[in-house]
């Protein structure tokens, strides 16, 4: 249909061209300079109009037809090869300009350029930014980095989760032991108290004497480290050193009871020390498990969704850019086709053989001038 229209126009144009050429032959004396000026202006106008048409995204038939018409009239009026060259030059400049813009390939630039595409981006944004995301520029490199980070986050998450599980297992063990030790402690302390009662009975009150004699500790604890999946758990060891400060206590009477009582209490202290180390481990593990769980949850519920969101955003953004690129190429193709049609029409109008492929129009025309 379009071709048909073009052909019709070309015919009309052909007629006018013939007439015009006849006239020209008749009026050879007219100054060529003036004509050239006028024609140049016409050509420029035509080029401007063509530019307008090119930039228009709407596929209106009227708009489309306007540019061939304008170009036709301009071209026909300027049968001189020079004038034609001017038109083509201006058209080529236009084309180059478009291609430059395309080559920039700048995401922001293209976004600003066409309102329709900006709209598309906005919807994409809304889809991708349903949650929080990192502030990154959507490039392929950023995408790769993000994917690596996501992988790292997943690995870290699984590792931390395993750590937390190991710690929790240990924690439960310790809790069970604490429970047992506390019960044991009750019994041991009972026995110790009983033996002290015996001492009281046989020796009388020695408490003041004992308190006064306490100078340097004989029973000491030593902290030891135990490693549970990267957590240093302390454990106390009881060690007996130095000399017995109470060797002479109860020398008068009840010395045996006192020594027995001392042994019982030493055993009690041993149990207490065990319990204390369990309790310390309990407190530390409790803390570490809390921290680990917090980290696991942070990775699971904050970091990973954020990364996924960002990846989705970058991907949608890249897809959008691909579509833009494709659309632009299509547009350029269409424009090139229009130009070719115009040229063909001119050739036909000039009564020449249509379209010799690969021969630039300028050269082609120059053969006949």
């Amino acid at each position: 249909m379009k071709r048909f229209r073009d052909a019709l126009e070309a015919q009309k144009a052909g007629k006018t061209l013939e007439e015009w050429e006849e006239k020209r032959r008749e009026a050879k004396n007219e100054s060529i300079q003036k004509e050239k000026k006028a024609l140049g202006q016409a050509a420029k106008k035509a080029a401007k109009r063509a530019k307008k048409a090119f930039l228009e995204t709407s596929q209106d038939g009227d708009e489309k037809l306007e540019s061939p018409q304008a170009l036709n009239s301009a071209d026909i009026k300027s049968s001189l090869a020079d004038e034609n060259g001017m038109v083509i030059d201006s058209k080529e400049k236009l084309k180059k300009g478009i291609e430059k813009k395309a080559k920039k390939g700048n995401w922001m630039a293209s976004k600003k350029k066409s309102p329709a595409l900006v709209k598309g981006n906005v919807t994409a944004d809304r889809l991708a930014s349903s949650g929080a995301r990192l502030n990154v520029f959507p490039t392929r490199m950023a995408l790769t980095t993000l994917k690596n980070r996501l992988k790292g986050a997943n690995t870290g998450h699984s590792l931390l989760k395993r750590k937390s599980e190991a710690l929790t297992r240990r924690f439960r063990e310790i809790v069970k032991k604490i429970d047992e030790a506390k019960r044991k402690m009750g019994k041991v302390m009972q026995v110790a108290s009983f033996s002290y009662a015996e001492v009281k009975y046989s020796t009388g009150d020695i408490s003041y004497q004992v308190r006064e004699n306490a100078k340097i500790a004989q029973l000491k604890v030593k902290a030891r480290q135990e490693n549970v999946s990267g957590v240093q758990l302390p454990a106390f060891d009881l060690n007996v050193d130095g000399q017995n400060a109470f060797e002479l206590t109860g020398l008068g009477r009840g010395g045996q009871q006192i020594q027995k009582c001392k042994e019982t209490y030493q055993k009690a202290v041993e149990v207490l020390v065990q319990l204390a180390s369990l309790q310390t481990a309990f407190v530390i593990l409790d803390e570490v498990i809390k921290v680990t769980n917090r980290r696991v949850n942070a990775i699971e519920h904050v970091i990973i969704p954020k990364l996924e969101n960002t990846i989705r955003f970058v991907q949608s953004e890249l897809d959008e850019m691909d579509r833009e690129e494709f659309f632009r190429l299509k547009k350029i193709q269409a424009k090139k086709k229009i130009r070719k049609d115009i040229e063909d029409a001119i050739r036909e109008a000039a009564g020449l053989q249509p379209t010799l492929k690969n021969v630039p129009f300028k050269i082609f025309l120059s053969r006949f001038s």
Partner: protein
Amino acid sequence: MSVYQKDRSLIAVIGDEDTVTGLLLAGIGHVDSKQKANFLVVDSKTTLPTIEESFIEFTRRKDIGIILINQHVADDIRSMLDEYHQAFPTVLEIPSKDHPYDPAKDSILKRVQKLFGDDQR
């Protein structure tokens, strides 16, 4: 953590006369060069601020690894014990002759129960 644990070698005790005497007999008693003892005998005449003061002092001393405290004394300063979350020194509640041990009152065991529910026990 391990650095300041090395020095923690003493066992401190806050309790009634019998408990303290028994433990001192076992040989935990230590009086340092400044005449500071690592034990406190609590009797009917001992005031609450004294207990609190010595508890705070024991928790701040760098050479004490374990603090033993009679449960009936611990009850007097329960709020302090509940707020105490340090790993070192470890505070351990022990029964006394006159007061049998009640696991339900123990600060640590309370936390255990809180974490695992009552079915654990």
